[in-house]
């Protein structure tokens, strides 16, 4: 694992984790997109043999520890979402970026509903429609993240 490709991917995931932890003003907090999941999805589409379910599981566990949710919630939901993108990467790559963002909205909705269901089972929370705002903001920022990470990948020739 000493090759630089892996370290550069891990660096981008590290930046996403830090971005997920920085608190936004309270009014903007419900609209924060899920940076870590979006970046994992990009890497699983671009390099599915490098970033796969194992990476998603470990990053999900780190996210659980960092955010304080019950252990295993994020690793389960990330693994399922990355399974969907990694098994269909050829089809998703062929769409244009705005069409991809619609698909990403669908995957994010699945992720949020799954996460709510598991959290409801573990810590008895109730559903509010406001929990689904990150689906909209996440799919809007997908265009930006895709272009940014593609430039990053091509510049460093990560393969």
């Amino acid at each position, binding site marked *: 694992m000493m090759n630089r490709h892996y370290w550069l991917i891990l660096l981008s995931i590290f930046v996403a984790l830090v971005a997920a932890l920085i*608190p936004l003003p309270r009014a903007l907090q419900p609209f924060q997109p899920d940076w870590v999941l979006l970046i994992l999805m990009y890497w699983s589409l671009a390099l599915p043999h490098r970033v796969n379910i194992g990476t998603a599981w470990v990053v999900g566990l780190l996210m659980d520890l960092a955010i304080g949710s019950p252990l295993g919630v994020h*690793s389960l939901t990330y693994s399922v979402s990355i399974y969907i993108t990694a098994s269909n990467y050829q089809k998703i790559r062929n769409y244009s970026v705005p069409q991809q963002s619609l698909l990403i909205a669908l995957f994010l909705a699945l992720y949020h509903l799954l996460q709510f269901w598991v959290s409801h089972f573990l810590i008895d929370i109730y559903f509010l429609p406001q929990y689904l705002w990150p689906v909209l903001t996440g799919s809007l920022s997908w265009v930006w993240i895709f272009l940014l990470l593609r430039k990053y990948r091509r510049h460093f020739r990560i393969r």
Partner: protein
Amino acid sequence: MNLLFGRNASLQLRLIIAVVLSGLIMLGDRYTSGASTIRTSLNTFVSPLFYFANMPSEFLNWSSQNLDSRELLLAENASLKEKQLLQNAKLQEFNFLQSENLKLRALLNSSAKLDNKKLVTKILSIHSNSYNQQVVINKGFLDNVVEGLAVVDDLGVVGKVVQVGSSTSRVLLMTDNTHAIPVRVLRNNIKTVVEGSGKLNQVELPHVPHSKDIRMGDILVTSGLGEVFPEGLPVATVTNIERDEGKPFAKVYAQPIAQLDRIRLLVLLWSQQAEVISNDE
């Protein structure tokens, strides 16, 4: 390197393994206590994340402090000195009352209450799970923090410590769904329990029978019964009571006395009890 054929079979196997492992970890975290030791040891991996995530707000605080005008700092200094002088005067009264209390308890042959050990801690600016109400503080087991410590701010009770890392810990706020604290009403010593409801400024009292004498404006303080919170700390004020005779219990809502959306510095309290050897034994 683009593969021509996707490796779909092993993906499903990996998904099944990932789901099973996640399920085991979830059940282990919820139903066993061994998970807290695992979390403590794994927290060392996440502390660099906390350090980096806290840096922007630390930098903003530092720069705003350094850019304060000199007059502002002098005025703040003077008001703090005055406040400290008044509090020191009150503390002299408190010391006298405490020694009198100790002597009276010895006369009655009951156990004395020692001074609680305290530790001041700062909240790190870290976003926590939106389904929980938690904050992260900057002291860990290297500072002798253990799970279950009471956490207060200068106005009242804030919550308790739930997870401990090496240099950071998590505090569960009392407004969280899963937090409950035994209290008594200051006016007439009725014992009840305050549970969080998930909303930042409201807690509720479950299972209050219609006949219980609780009124609006009642102050609730800790009763010390759960052995987590020391006795007598202010918790909440009752704001709303709905007595519907058709329902088995009344609904009582209260507002926490500590301002939970504005906390910056917190105090951790260790609650201790000690026996006092009385004079004639």
